[in-house]
């Protein structure tokens, strides 16, 4: 029968009204139950869910709701009769079978759990879920043996050796049986490669004494999945170079798969700042770049160069950067960044002439600030090499605060103490980074009590320190200290020499120098020397001596700015506050 337009409209309107009303009528008891559950009225919600189930015994959503609300009421086992009716009405529903299993678990009936799982497996013979749920319910009761029984039974019934492998592996990990865990994880990853990340996280925590055996087991496997897992585990266990070697030997020809594997290894090393980890990051990034099209490859090579540079492999960093800086096909920003990084690498490497040439070539394309920064970096390189004249002439009349700070250092290392102090004061407290500013302030404090305007021996000792020759610097400082009165800078220089001895791990020498610096109690350095000596004694477990010294320092120099710090160390020495 064909409907006329007006009649169609009427029918449509009626349908629009009737369908939601009908749905609402069906949904209303469920909605009420949900609402009561959400409000925390669990007893009322349980009654509401039961009323839904009385009308529709096979309603899985209502049964799951009832299970949820019975838990906080501590009455989980009460659901059993309702579950029986639900199973009779809807015997193929997996969620209902799951509820049945958990209900028997709550009732502490392991035999019934087993029977419920077998009943479920009967209607889903190829499914792992019945055994997985059975195991999970057993684990919920802290029953690991029950869980093992569930998984073993499932594996037998399903007739697959890799069935429930991930569950078996997790169980073995919890038992600290790492060999079994790995044996189970391997088929699990082969079936579902996404498990690899979980496995590396889980086995990454394995104690060091168990690691060799696991590596031997992995070594007996000959597929790429095992190699990749071995590489990432080696990286997690502190052998990144071994990890890279393992991976490189097995990398597939397929570029995408190889890049994916290399990236996985890099991910494992992200947070590690050891030299080996940084070096491996550099090498892995270089390998990724070799398999990546431009322009992305250039950016990755720059990252590789930065990792090499941080690892101290300047040769490799320079190799990456030289190519990039000259590569006309590299994006402009990458090329410019690479050239600037290269100058820094060359300076760090001590190749100052070449760095100077590169900087001169680069100058036209650099912003003035960027150029000035690189030039000052080169000045620092010349200072570190001891070529103070080259440094001075390159610095020229740089009037920035950073330039004044550098000029102060050049004066200082020449022994011109007055000139150094004037320039440090002109540079003020904000030149350079925070560490640099702190170091400059410390130098000013060191120079303040020294009366002579010129002291080349002191400049030479401090230059040795700048160049990393700590042992000679320590001897030089002690020598200069002996020529000065303790109250006229002698004690301060001896204190600095003592701190260098601590850095050189020469505690006996440090103790002698600290005691020398504190010998004249009228010297301004005396309280600092006593505090530093107390810390040295604490590090040597000489608690009683440290406590006595700290008490002496606090009582003798009550107005010293170091007293609050000394009190804190005293508290730590006495165990009154945690040592941090």
């Amino acid at each position, binding site marked *: 029968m064909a409907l006329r337009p007006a009649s169609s409209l009427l029918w449509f309107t009626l349908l629009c009204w009737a369908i939601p009303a009908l749905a609402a009528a069906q949904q209303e008891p469920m909605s009420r139950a949900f609402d009561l559950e959400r409000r925390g009225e669990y007893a009322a919600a349980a009654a509401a869910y039961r009323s839904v189930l009385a009308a529709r015994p096979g309603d899985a959503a209502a049964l799951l709701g009832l299970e949820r609300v019975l838990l*906080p009421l*501590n009455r989980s086992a009460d659901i059993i009769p309702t579950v029986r009716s639900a199973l009779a009405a809807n015997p193929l529903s997996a969620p209902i079978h799951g509820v049945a299993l958990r209900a028997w678990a709550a009732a502490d009936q392991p035999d019934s759990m087993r029977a419920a799982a077998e009943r479920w497996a009967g209607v889903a013979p190829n499914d792992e879920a019945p055994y997985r749920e059975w195991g999970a319910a057993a684990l919920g009761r*802290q029953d690991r043996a029950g869980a093992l029984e569930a998984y073993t039974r499932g594996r037998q019934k399903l007739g697959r050796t890799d069935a429930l492998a991930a569950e078996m592996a997790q169980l073995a990990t*919890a038992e600290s049986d790492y060999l079994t865990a790995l044996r189970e994880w391997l088929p699990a990853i082969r079936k579902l490669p996404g498990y690899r990340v979980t496995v590396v996280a889980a086995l990454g925590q394995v104690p060091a004494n168990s690691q060799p055996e696991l590596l031997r087991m992995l070594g007996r496997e000959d597929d790429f999945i095992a190699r990749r897992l071995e590489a990432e585990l080696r990286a997690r266990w502190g052998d990144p170079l071994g990890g890279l070697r393992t991976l490189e030997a097995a990398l597939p020809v397929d570029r995408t798969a190889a890049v994916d594997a290399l990236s996985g290894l890099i991910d494992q090393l992200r947070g590690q700042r050891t030299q080996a980890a940084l070096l491996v990051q550099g090498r892995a990034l270089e390998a990724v770049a070799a398999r990546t099209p431009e322009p992305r490859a250039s950016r990755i090579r720059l990252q590789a160069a930065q990792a090499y540079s941080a690892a101290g492999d300047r040769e490799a960093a320079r190799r990456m950067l030289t190519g990039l800086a000259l590569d006309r096909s590299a994006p402009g920003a990458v090329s410019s960044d690479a050239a600037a990084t290269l100058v820094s690498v060359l300076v760090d490497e001590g190749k100052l002439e070449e760095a100077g040439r590169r900087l001169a070539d680069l100058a036209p394309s650099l912003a003035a600030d960027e150029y000035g920064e690189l030039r000052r970096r080169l000045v620092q390189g010349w200072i570190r090499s001891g070529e103070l004249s080259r440094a001075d002439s390159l610095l020229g009349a740089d009037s920035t605060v950073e330039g004044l700070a550098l000029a102060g250092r050049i004066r200082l290392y020449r022994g011109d103490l007055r000139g150094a102090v004037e320039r440090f004061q002109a540079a003020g407290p904000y030149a350079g980074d925070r560490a640099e500013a702190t170091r400059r302030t410390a130098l000013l404090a060191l120079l303040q009590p020294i009366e002579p305007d010129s002291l080349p021996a002191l400049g030479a000792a401090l230059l040795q320190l700048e160049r990393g020759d700590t042992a000679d610097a320590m001897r030089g400082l002690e020598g200069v200290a002996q020529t000065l009165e303790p109250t006229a800078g002698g004690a301060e220089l001896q204190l600095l020499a003592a701190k260098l001895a601590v850095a050189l791990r020469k505690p006996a020498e440090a103790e002698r120098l600290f005691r020398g610096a504190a010998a004249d109690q009228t010297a301004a350095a005396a309280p600092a020397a006593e505090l530093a000596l107390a810390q040295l004694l604490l590090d040597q477990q000489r608690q009683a001596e440290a406590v006595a010294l700290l008490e002496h320092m606090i009582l003798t120099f*009550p*107005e010293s700015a170091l007293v609050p710090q000394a009190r804190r160390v005293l508290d730590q020495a006495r165990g009154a*506050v945690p040592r941090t």
Partner: protein
Amino acid sequence: MKRREFVARACAGVAALSPLGSRLGWAASAPWLLVPMDDAQSDHLKAYGLTYRVLQRGDRAEWFLNYRSGSFLLPSDAATARDAALAGVATEPLNDGQLVQIRGQLQGGNMDAVPLEKAPKVAVYAPPNAPPWDDAVTMALNYAGIKFEKIWDPEVMGSGLKSYDWLHLHHEDFTGQYSKFFLNYAGAPWLVEMVDRNRAMARSLGFPTVPAEKRAVAVAIARYVERGGFLFAMCTATETLDLALAADGVDIAASYADGSPMAPDASGRMRWDEAFAFHNARLELSPTTPVYSDIDGHQVNSPDRRQPLGSFTLFNFSAKIDPVATMLVQNHRQVIPDFYGLTTSFTRKTLKPSATVLGDEPGAPWVKYIHGERGQGTWTYFGGHDPEDPQHQIGDVPTDLSLHPHSPGYRLILNNVLFPAAKKKELKT
């Protein structure tokens, strides 16, 4: 007078008046040291330790209630001056004339001087391997330099409590349910260790279950208070101690703790007359929710019931009529930021009328700090875990009190340590 003699005398005068002189005990003309506890104090917490050690040496001290936020009067001897200088506690030299003036002020206002006579012997109830930095009282005692001894179930069940004046409880779950973390932290090494240790202890003391043993410990603690002990409890020890005491013949423990589920009608069968502070509470029936009852107002571990932190206000009491309550609230701050614990606060509806409220959150249905008497002793409950770590989580870095030397919350703890030192006098009410 010759010029040289004049200069020498002037220098001596300046030295005597200088702070350095007072710190090192040079001010021989001042027989007293006032330890101010207002904002002039440089380390409020260590000031308690300084006073405690004076008592320990056999000297006497006085607590000036409500005078400069609860100052102490100590003898100005060399040992005290040295101790104050080492601890960094600010002191002010007082001569007899100045002291008379202060006593006049104490007479005229809501203030009083309470003599402190004897350093109380302090016990902290904690398992043998409890980490030293996970209990606010232990941290406060360590920082202030107040000696204490650790005791646990064997000492409580024996006669160990008799030798202590003051007992502190903090973490312990006296319902024997391992802080109700059993299901949520299943497998965590610290929980496994805690369960094993408690089960072994219950067995060795001849109890069938941990809840039964913990209830016996709770009863022994109640007897200790009745005989004249001072009890101070924080965090979850407050609520669970009362629940354990009231659960006489009632199973309030989940099945994982004692093998049988909690009695569904437990709330109605509790014997609240045996509890110190609470009554008519409704017990939490879910074994998976780390909440015990509606005693705690904040329910920190129940996401749908958790209440945000506010701040609590200390009450004012009459120093002359109610010196005990006054001692317990001495502070340089009246309003203090709140902090969570497994039990953070105490709902007013579950509080017995006999309990004295020392601090509460105005307008909120809970209080924070309460006190009461039982037999010849007293109990004080302070909700929350760590006053300087308001959102404390398991595994957090320990609080370093040298970074919080003025903590008003920790001061409340130390008020409790020192108040048993006060000479008892007959109260007017």
